[in-house]
């Protein structure tokens, strides 16, 4: 099932639930791919990326990519393609100095050219809320382009702000380094993060991770800790636990299956880590969310 909504300004929203898809294309517009359920694979710039639930991927105009779904159960996703004119308007309005704007959230961010990093991010915060609202509108068959474009503007703003915050956080943490070095380390750490997001259910060695992110293992661990105040291993554990939370809330999988699905060693390790984070056992967590979702 695929529901495609093309707006008159070339923005396009595609909501789908598919068990199979295999396309290779170049999209001339900037696109966000958001996954809600199941796994979706992408190949772009020789990188193999996998989107798991509640993560998203940005793809720049002109990038050749493959989008592959091959799953026993339907994969629910949303793609938003932003028309060139809309992007130009966004840049103009976003970068415009507007002293009447009361908030320090958006317009006061550094005014430099927009650059988008083709990598995986978790779906969080305002971006998550606005995308969820957009899905409700699409399901209710909303055709009000003004309203839909308002949401698309905010989604773009949320995405850009998230990217900026990530960059600024790393910049601040690595402020002793030169600008060029800092940018290069940020790029490589982004590679490390996307590798962890794409392969969290596999056994990942530091050797593989450092090879993918073009850094030595020592340099990677040191830079990662310096930039994100955590180790790659702890970051990976967090991804696994977040995914386990999703499975506890949205499936009836037994604990053993969840442990295998998220790539943890054993149920006892999982329960221990889960209790440290949530102060309750996974089953109590599941029961407390039963009926909410």
């Amino acid at each position, binding site marked *: 099932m695929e529901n495609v909504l093309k707006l008159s300004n070339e923005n396009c929203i595609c909501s789908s639930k598919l068990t199979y898809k295999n396309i290779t294309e170049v999209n001339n517009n900037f696109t966000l791919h958001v996954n809600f359920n199941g796994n979706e694979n992408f190949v772009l710039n020789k990188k193999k990326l996998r989107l798991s639930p509640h993560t998203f991927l940005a793809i720049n105009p002109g990038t050749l990519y493959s989008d592959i779904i091959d799953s026993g159960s339907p994969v629910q996703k949303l793609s938003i393609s932003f028309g060139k004119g809309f992007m130009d308007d966004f840049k103009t309005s976003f970068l415009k100095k507007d002293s*009447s*704007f*009361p*908030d*320090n*959230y*958006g317009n006061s961010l550094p005014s430099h050219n927009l650059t988008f990093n083709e990598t995986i991010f978790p779906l*969080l*915060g*305002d971006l998550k*809320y*606005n995308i969820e*609202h957009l899905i*409700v*509108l699409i399901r209710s068959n909303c055709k*009000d382009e*003004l*309203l839909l474009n*308002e*949401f698309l503007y*905010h989604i773009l703003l949320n995405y850009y702000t998230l990217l900026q915050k990530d960059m600024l956080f790393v910049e601040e943490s690595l402020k002793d380094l030169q600008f060029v070095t800092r940018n290069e380390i940020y790029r490589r750490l982004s590679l490390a993060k996307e590798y962890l997001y794409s392969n969290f259910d596999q056994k990942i060695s530091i050797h593989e991770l450092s090879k993918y992110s073009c850094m030595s293992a020592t340099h990677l661990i040191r830079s990662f800790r310096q930039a994100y105040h955590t180790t790659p291993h702890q970051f990976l554990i967090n991804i696994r636990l977040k995914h386990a939370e999703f499975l506890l809330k949205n499936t009836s999988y037994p604990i053993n299956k969840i442990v295998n699905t998220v790539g943890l060693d054993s149920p006892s390790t999982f329960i221990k880590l889960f209790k440290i984070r949530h102060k309750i056992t996974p089953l109590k967590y599941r029961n407390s969310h039963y009926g909410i979702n």
Partner: protein
Amino acid sequence: MRIKYVTIPSGNIAEEETFFVNFLGFKHTGELELWPNVRCKLLSNNDSDIHIAIIPDRCSLNQKAVIILNTENCLKQYHEITKNGVVFNHKPYYVSAGMIAEFTDKEGNQFILLEERSYTED
């Protein structure tokens, strides 16, 4: 839309809070950022799901009542009210409590559309 907070403007928020807690039996339940960098104290008792929001007295703005209308979807509500001809003071924006849009009626009463969002899982 529903009214979830009754606003109490005060020149001395701490004193007002003490009055509600000590004399009326309310409990402090949290804070809410209604305007950028301005935090309001929230109080409630067990008798109602309507809360008290003690807000800074902003007499200089000639504002009368401040009415907070909670909404599930601020952007959609903003869009619908705008279509009815209401002009908002600003486009919807983000604060730590969630998303906000505000307009003022002809009498100077201020209406705040508030979509509360939880960022704790982030």
